[in-house]
């Protein structure tokens, strides 16, 4: 089991992602985006899963999926479409 954080362009997308993951019985929760990941103050979804769930999260138009490597340590795993 690994820890991931997915960021989104809007709060509404984060809600969709959170629902998608919980519907699949994946342990997920919504929270403010950690400052290290962004200067914007949006909402992200943190979840525990065996793999990144990038396919499932595509419907929610995710921005980036990060690996959580430790407290305050993240690495970029997958970038969403049309990302800058």
């Amino acid at each position, binding site marked *: 089991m690994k820890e991931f954080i997915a960021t989104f362009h809007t709060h509404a997308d984060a809600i969709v992602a959170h629902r998608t993951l919980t519907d699949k019985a994946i342990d997920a929760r919504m929270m403010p985006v950690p400052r290290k990941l962004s200067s914007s*103050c949006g909402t992200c979804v943190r979840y525990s899963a065996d793999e990144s769930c990038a396919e499932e999260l595509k419907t929610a138009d995710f921005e980036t999926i990060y690996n959580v490597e430790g407290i305050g340590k993240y690495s970029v795993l997958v970038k969403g479409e049309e990302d800058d």
Partner: protein
Amino acid sequence: MKKINWLLVVTGLLVGAAAVALTALGNPPNMGFCIACFLRDIAGATKLHSAAVVQYFRPEIIGLVLGSTIMAIAGKEFKAKAGSSPATRFVLGFFVMVGALVFLGCPLRMVIRMGGGDLNAFVGFAGFFIGILIGIFFLKKGFSLKRTYKVNTSEGLVLPAALVIFGVLVLAVPALFAFSESGPGSKHAPFFISLIIALVIGALAQKSRMCFAGGLRDAVMFKDFNLVSGFVAVFIAVLLGNIILGKFSGFSTYLQPISHASQLWNLLGMVLVGWGSILLGGCPLRQLILAGEGNGDSAVTVLGMIVGAAFSHNFGLAGSAASLTDDVYKAGGIGTNGKVAVFIGFAVLLVISLINTKKEAK
């Protein structure tokens, strides 16, 4: 369980200290910083309205935006982006300003007034919190102004560049602008001191993401008290600063500086501000900071706030402060136009909230 975000606490303490210092240096009482009031003064200085007592090109606004720009560029976080319902954001900025000027202050000045012992501001805070809860209700239902997109860097620099040009013009050709000779607009700290203090605060606000609406939103939605710690820090610093300088004379609703005791309108004005700020994703201060780091939508929101301020004074919507002249007490408060405008604001925010809330399949 959670670590304290010291950057936010330090930023909050410095914002509070800066506010007290700016007032000691000449800014109006309990108005060391006020994004709404300062944008209103800028609208006056540029003759978008002609209320003679609130005209001054506030360098604090230039400093906050530029401080954010400089810090964002230094931290490689300057990202030009736009396209998230700019016209709707303009309207939201407009009504946030209408609400703020009914109350007489943005959320930042609300906290500064609270720290100054102004109990009317505590009523405003209750309204602000109610507005935030209404906004959160729609957020949870799926409210969205849709995403931003990457745009040319120049788009992200529009507001910072415009403010630099205005700043140069104010210094080089002051005769172009209106300057109040009495009232709050005539009270100001020296130009460059205000500018430098605001540059530092703008940079820190960019780094810490300080936001008064976001703090309460995160606390309510996620039990995350990071951002709200900045809010508390401003209050404590202002309270202590006022006590140290001997400016604090207890808590009261009576004759507070640039404040009125029409509590229903203090409350309703700030409901409008809280609700609008949640729909926008940040309070007026945060809009300045986001505009500084390249967000074109926030720049449009700031323009909406400036136009809202101009309308507020051209149409007599803004609250008038309580005053005591020759022993004659005037309660101040809100005129009929202002009351109607607040309710138009509620109607507009309700329509915006409803039509931008996605109907989910389940």
